[in-house]
C-alpha cells in the first residue's frame, strides 16, 4: 500500500470505499506492521500533546526564548481587555498558533507538524475550528489523519524543510495540511479537502525562510498565526465550491521548483531577507556576543 500523491490517495478512498482517515490509518498500520488500533492510540496521544502545548503556551512568558516573549500571553491579555478585532474563531486561531510557537521557542513539548518551525499552524487552526464546530474527540483525531494524509503526499512530492524549500515548504505545507483537515471536519468531500490544501499552499508560494539569528522565533511564530488563518480562508473557499484550478499534486511540484529557484541565502541560512536587515544583524551580533565557544 502506497500513498504518494493526492490523486492516488483519493483513488484509494474510492476503490476501498473508505474515508480519508481510514485509508491513512490503514496505510500506517501496514507500513509499521501494526494494527489500526495502535495507530489510532498514537494519534490520540498526539492530539493530547497538541492541546497541552496550546494551554501551556498561553501561559508562557518566554523566559527561555531569546527574542520573543509571551506572544500567546500578550494576545490573550489584549483580547480580555477587548482590544482586538474579529470574531471568536478568528481570534482563537491566532491565539492558539502563537501560543504553540511561543512554547516551542521556550523549549516546550510540541508536535512538529510537519516541522518544529511550523508547529503552531495545525493546532492553531484545527483545534480552534473543532471547538467552534463542537466536534467530538473522535472527529478531531480523524481529522489529524487527514492532516497526515495531506502531509504525506506533500513530502512524497516536494520538500518539507526550510533549508530545501523555504518557508513555503514549512508554514505553506502546514497550512495546506490544516486546510484539508478543517474542510474534512466541516463536512467537505475528499476532493474539497485537496482543493482547500491546494488553495492554502498557493497562497504561500515563494515564501522564503529568513529567520533572525538562525532562531525559530522571528518571523516564524507570527507567520505561523498568519498561515493558520489562511488555512481557514482556503477551507471556506473550497467548501463554497471555489476550485483551486491547479490540483494539489501540481501545486506541490510548483512549490518544489520555486524552492529550487530560491537562493541559498533565503533557505534557512539567515544570510538574507529579514535576517540581514540592519536590525536583524544587530540582534544577531548581540546574541553572538553573549554566547561563543
Amino acid at each position, binding site marked *: 500500500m502506497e500513498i*504518494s500523491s493526492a490523486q492516488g490517495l483519493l483513488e484509494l478512498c474510492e476503490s476501498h470505499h473508505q474515508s480519508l482517515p481510514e485509508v491513512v490509518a490503514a496505510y*500506517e498500520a501496514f507500513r509499521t506492521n501494526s494494527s489500526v488500533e495502535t495507530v489510532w492510540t*498514537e494519534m490520540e496521544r498526539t492530539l493530547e500533546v497538541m492541546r497541552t502545548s496550546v494551554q501551556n503556551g498561553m501561559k508562557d512568558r518566554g523566559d527561555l526564548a531569546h527574542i520573543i516573549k509571551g506572544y500567546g500571553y500578550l494576545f490573550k491579555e489584549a483580547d480580555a481587555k477587548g482590544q482586538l478585532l474579529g470574531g471568536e474563531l478568528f481570534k482563537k486561531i491566532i491565539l492558539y498558533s502563537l501560543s504553540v510557537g511561543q512554547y516551542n521557542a*521556550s*523549549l516546550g*513539548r*510540541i508536535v*512538529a507538524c510537519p516541522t518544529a518551525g511550523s508547529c503552531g499552524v495545525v493546532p492553531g487552526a484545527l483545534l480552534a475550528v473543532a471547538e467552534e464546530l463542537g466536534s467530538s474527540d473522535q472527529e478531531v483525531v480523524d481529522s489529524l489523519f487527514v492532516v497526515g494524509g495531506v502531509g504525506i503526499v506533500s513530502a512524497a512530492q516536494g520538500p518539507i524543510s526550510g533549508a530545501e524549500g523555504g518557508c513555503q515548504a514549512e508554514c505553506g505545507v502546514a497550512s495546506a495540511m490544516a486546510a484539508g483537515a478543517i474542510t474534512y471536519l466541516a463536512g467537505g468531500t475528499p476532493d474539497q479537502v485537496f482543493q482547500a490544501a491546494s488553495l492554502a499552499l498557493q497562497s504561500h508560494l515563494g515564501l522564503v525562510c529568513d529567520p533572525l539569528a538562525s532562531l525559530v522565533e522571528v518571523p516564524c511564530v507570527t507567520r505561523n498565526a498568519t498561515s493558520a488563518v489562511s488555512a481557514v480562508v482556503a477551507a471556506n473557499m473550497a467548501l463554497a465550491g471555489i476550485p483551486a484550478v491547479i490540483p494539489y499534486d501540481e501545486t506541490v511540484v510548483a512549490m518544489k521548483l520555486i524552492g529550487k529557484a530560491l537562493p541559498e541565502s533565503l533557505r534557512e541560512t539567515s544570510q538574507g531577507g529579514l535576517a540581514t536587515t540592519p536590525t536583524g544583524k544587530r540582534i544577531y551580533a548581540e546574541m553572538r556576543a553573549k554566547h561563543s565557544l
Partner: protein
Amino acid sequence: MARISLFDIVGPIMVGPSSSHTAGAVRLGLATRRILGEDVRKATISLHGSFAATYWGHRTDVALIAGLLGMGMADKRIPQALELAQARGLDYSFHSVNLGDVHPNSVEIQAHGEHGKLTVRGASIGGGRIRLFSIDGFEVSVDGTYTVLMTKHRDEPGVIAEITRVLALHGINIAFLDVSRKMRGSEAMLLAETDDPIPTEVIEHVQRLPGVLMVRSLPCF
C-alpha cells in the same frame, strides 16, 4: 523509496525549538549513552559547523547533555538538563571543532563511564533523524531504524561466523551487516542491524565467544 512515516509528518512529539538542532541532538546524546551501556561520568563534546555556530540559539548543548543523561527527545526535563547533569555528577565540556567534510550538523562526543569509554561522531540530518558515522575511529553508518549489535573483536577467521551463528541460534534475523577494521589482523568492528530486539542473554553469549573483545547493543531509537 521508503514509505513516509505518518508520525514523522504529524510529529515527532519533541521538545523545541528545532527538530535538527534540538531533537536530533538529544538523540545523538542518547545513542552515545546507549552504546556506552552505563551512566556517563564525563563527556567532552566537540561541535562542528552549523552545530558550533548556532548551538546556543537552539540549545544544542542542553539537548546533547539531556540525551547523555538518558532522556528521549520528548522528555520534559530537557530544559533542566545542565542542572541535572551537575546533580548526577556528569562532568562535561563543549568545544568547537572542524571534523572536515561532514554534515554541517555534526558532533564528536567522547564519553567516559565508570567502566568504559567511547568516542562517537554523528550528525543530525533533519527532522530529528540522525546518523552515527564513526564509533571509536571505525567508520559506520547507523541511523537508529534498526536494533544494532556492535562488537569489537580480533580480526581473524571465524569470529564473525561465530557471532552471526549466535544470532541465528536465538532466532534473530540480520537485516544489514557491516564489518570494518583499521588494519589487517588488528582490531575489527562488526555492526549487525537486526529485525528483532537483542535480549541480554545474546549479548552475554557473544561476549563469551573467543576473539570478541567488546559487545554492545543499541535498541532502535
